């Protein structure tokens, strides 16, 4: 059995259309009631126009009522004038309008939320006002007008007037209202229903005509006949609600009045009146009961429909949401299983309905669910929530969030009401997050770097073990502490840099330092970068810091070692040169001695000798100065100490080195060819170290050539500027060249071809040149011999 949909709220017709419909309806109603009454001499049996006017007023705002009242008046005059005098027409019109306005005003004031036909209570109020009270009052005015017209008995007159008005308002008003706010009366939803409507209405009309036609029946006959339309009326009320009942009753009324009027001649007007009275009374009593029934049925239908649509919405919501509702018996059997849950667990729904919760719950989770359910049943708790795993058909666990309560009847708990949410995604994300956290912890613990993460208040979130070891004041947990309280010390630039990093700025320092509480100065290299920014909110700062104190110390001691080694090598070279250096010194000394001894002779020869002595003394001074130069050069090379980097001319350094090696070159019969660039750029370096390198290369060259033919011993020293802003020095000899076997290892330490020496000369030379930012390398000469190349960055050049 299909349920009719509830009356849908139809868009009300436009004002003009509404006025036109009213005019037509009012004209028809007035014509039928007034003219029918005039012809049939049964005045006001079903006074329809007032019901039409009441409906128009009820359906319109108060400010538009005048339109309908103003329209009704000419209609009444136009239709009524041929039949009646204008004065009673006007008086009756005023009475009827007043009645409609009074009823409409009262009804509006008390208007219930769902409308007058929505509940028995509101329909009762409607009846009391529109059917009883107002028509009763109006009937007095109407009866007074009739009595003024001609004398007649008061109560029958009042009763006739009252019943005509009351019946119209009882039957017609609900009919019009139900159609006005419901679907169109012409809309056909199904042919079966249309046919049913036709049968019901036809039955009512035919049986009504039969029942009320042909007067003068005996009482038992009448009783049977009056019962005839009753089943159809009930049918209409039950199947079609207020609309159907009011339509059937209206038709019955019309048919009855018509039948009474057309019936066999009544013995007297009183007899006709009595027939009409009984018809009207019958309609009033049966109609009101029937309409009450119809209202109740409509209300039930509406409630049922709203329940169904709520359930449908709930089902749709459940299907769309992650939450699944499950009913389980107290022993754990499934009573209701949503399709979605069955799908998630990969089990047929029917099979699940035969199974038990416990079988499907992960063994580790059973205990908790059981314990809480016991408390729930014992009434200790209202509901409980927990996370549990259900097992899929293939045994794989699926995580759910369970919220369980119990549904109780009068005899105690009926069943469990469970809401399940699939949280496997969340669980996966949680597991992933835990993994990341663990990885981060491992990274923190084992990273050799000093890293710390600070929040937006510059409190530590985490810090690597290295960082804590290097910077933390104590060994307490560092998380949550402000950096100023947690650290044993930090560079003075940190507070500002950390503050700026919260605004997104990065800062770093390759070389910085800070004092520890014990006064020790630590060197540190650091970088501060802004933390991650999510949804416009910055998480804080990230701090990378590394103590470089030890490394710096190492570098310094390495530098010292290099310097000491370089000094040792200088001493060593000078040792190798000692023979020739002695020669270099002995020359001026020899000259001085010879001159002095000659002078002793000349001085005894009087004035002639004095002149010679003068020139001798000049020579002595000059030779002495020369000896001093040699000693100064030696002292310079033997000096120990920190290298001094200054701007120097490489050509000068070469000349000085050659001066020192002069005697050696002469002794070994080595010819020197100098090709020094005139406009050589200056370089930045330590004069002594560079002279040492050149001296070393010169001495090596001389030694290499010593074994060969003395006429071919040539040392070439050349300087020029490279394209890439380097000053280039070449020291080339005509010796046998470097043995190809050791060429690749030439600069390695302890490699020597000499009978004496450590084999550190070239190693140290290269380290000294590297310390100058330059390069030292060897290239064999095709015509024989070796060439050592030095490239040094010119002043102002990079690299």
């Amino acid at each position: 059995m299909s349920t009719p949909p509830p009356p849908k709220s139809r868009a009300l017709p436009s004002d003009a259309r509404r006025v036109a419909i009213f005019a037509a309806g009012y004209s028809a109603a007035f014509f039928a009631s007034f003219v029918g009454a005039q012809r049939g001499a049964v005045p006001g049996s079903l006074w329809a126009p007032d019901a039409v006017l009441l409906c128009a007023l009820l359906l319109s705002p108060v400010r538009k009522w005048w339109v309908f009242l103003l329209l009704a008046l000419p209609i009444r005059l136009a239709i009524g004038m041929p039949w009646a005098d204008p004065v009673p027409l006007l008086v009756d019109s005023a009475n009827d309008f007043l009645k409609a306005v009074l009823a409409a005003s009262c009804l509006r004031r008390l208007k219930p939320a769902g409308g007058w036909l929505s509940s028995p209570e509101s329909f009762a109020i409607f009846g009391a006002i529109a059917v009883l009270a107002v028509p009763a009052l109006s009937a007095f005015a109407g009866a007074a007008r009739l009595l003024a017209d001609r004398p007649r008995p008061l109560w029958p007159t009042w009763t006739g007037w009252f019943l005509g008005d009351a019946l119209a308002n009882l039957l017609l008003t609900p009919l019009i209202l139900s159609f006005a706010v419901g679907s169109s009366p012409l809309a056909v939803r199904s042919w079966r229903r249309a046919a049913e409507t036709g049968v019901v209405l036809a039955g009512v009309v035919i049986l009504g005509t039969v029942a009320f036609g042909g007067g003068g029946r005996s009482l038992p006959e009448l009783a049977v006949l009056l019962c005839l339309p009753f089943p159809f009326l009930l049918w209409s009320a039950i199947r079609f609600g207020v609309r159907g009942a009011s339509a059937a009753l209206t038709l019955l009324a019309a048919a009855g009045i018509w039948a009474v009027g057309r019936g066999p001649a009544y013995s007297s007007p009183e007899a006709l009146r009595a027939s009409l009275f009984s018809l009207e009374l019958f309609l009033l009593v049966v109609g009101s009961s029937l309409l009450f029934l119809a209202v109740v049925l409509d209300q039930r239908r509406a409630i049922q429909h709203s329940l169904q649509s709520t359930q449908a919405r709930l089902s749709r919501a459940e299907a769309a949401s992650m939450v699944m509702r499950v009913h389980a018996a107290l022993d754990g059997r499934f009573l209701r299983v949503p399709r979605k849950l069955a799908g998630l667990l990969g089990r047929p729904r029917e099979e699940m309905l035969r199974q038990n919760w416990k079988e499907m719950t992960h063994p580790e989770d059973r205990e908790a669910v059981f314990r809480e359910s016991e408390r729930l049943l014992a009434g200790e708790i209202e509901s409980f929530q927990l996370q549990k795993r259900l097992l899929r058909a293939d045994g794989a666990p699926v995580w759910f969030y369970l919220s369980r309560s119990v549904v109780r009847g009068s005899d105690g708990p009926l069943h469990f009401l469970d809401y399940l949410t699939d949280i496997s995604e969340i669980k996966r994300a949680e597991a992933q997050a835990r993994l990341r956290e663990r990885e981060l912890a491992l990274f923190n613990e084992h990273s050799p770097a000093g890293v710390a993460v600070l929040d937006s208040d510059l409190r530590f979130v985490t810090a690597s073990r290295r960082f804590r070891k290097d910077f933390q004041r104590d060994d307490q947990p560092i998380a949550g502490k402000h950096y100023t309280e947690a650290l044993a010390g930090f560079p003075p630039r940190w507070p500002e840099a950390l503050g700026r990093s919260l605004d997104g700025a990065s800062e770093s320092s390759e070389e910085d330092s800070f004092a520890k509480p014990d006064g020790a100065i630590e060197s540190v290299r650091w970088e501060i970068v802004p933390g991650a920014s999510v949804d416009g909110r910055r998480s804080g700062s990230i701090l990378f810091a590394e103590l470089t104190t030890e490394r710096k110390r190492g570098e310094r001691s390495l530098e010292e070692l290099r310097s000491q080694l370089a000094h040792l090598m200088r001493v060593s070279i000078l040792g190798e040169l000692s023979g020739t250096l002695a020669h270099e010194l002995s020359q001026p000394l020899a000259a001085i001695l010879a001159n002095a001894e000659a002078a002793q002779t000349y001085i005894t020869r009087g004035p002639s000798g004095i002149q010679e002595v003068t020139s001798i003394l000049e020579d002595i001074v000059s030779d002495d100065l020369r000896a001093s130069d040699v000693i100064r050069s030696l002292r310079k090379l033997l000096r120990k100490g920190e290298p001094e980097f200054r701007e120097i001319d490489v050509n000068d350094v070469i000349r000085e080195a050659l001066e020192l090696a002069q005697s050696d070159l002469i002794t070994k019969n080595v010819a020197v060819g100098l090709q020094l660039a005139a406009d050589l750029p200056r370089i930045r370096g330590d004069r002594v170290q560079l002279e040492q390198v050149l001296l070393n290369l010169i001495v090596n060259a001389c030694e290499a050539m010593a074994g060969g033919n003395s006429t071919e011993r040539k040392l070439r020293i050349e300087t020029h500027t490279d394209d890439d802003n380097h000053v280039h020095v070449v020291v080339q000899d005509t010796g046998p060249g470097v043995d190809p076997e050791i060429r690749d290892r030439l600069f390695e330490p302890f490699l020597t071809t000499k009978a004496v020496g450590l084999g550190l000369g070239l190693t140290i030379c290269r380290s000294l040149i590297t310390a100058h930012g330059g390069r030292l390398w060897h290239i064999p000469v095709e015509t024989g011999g070796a060439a050592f190349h030095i490239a040094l960055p010119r002043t102002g050049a990079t690299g």
Partner: protein
Amino acid sequence: MEPRVLVAVVDDEESVCRALLRLLRATGMDVETFSSSVDFLESMRERLPTRRPDCVVLDLHLPGLTGIDVQRQLKLEKIPLPIIMITGNEEAGVQEQVLSEGARAFLVKPINARNLFDAIEHAVRETPPGRPAQAT
């Protein structure tokens, strides 16, 4: 009057040459100085034996041809000239080599005047008889 002794001094060091020239002249010797071994040898070859010096004070460390080279060359060319080798650097084995090859003396700078005079005197005196320089 005993003929004056002519001494040649060969040293690339100009100041040493000049100083020795003064010293030897002060004691009444004639002195010729050469700053290059090649010039010295050339001069010896060009001269008649009678015009050659009585002895030569020869520096061991000469650029180009060294003192030893000059000594060997003189021997090779049979130019008999007493040689007093002087050096600023006392190298092991050199003295023995020089003396074994016929040099009369080996003196290390700075040279004491007495030693030099003795060496010259000794060298001149030991010059074989018949030597023109001494005959005249």
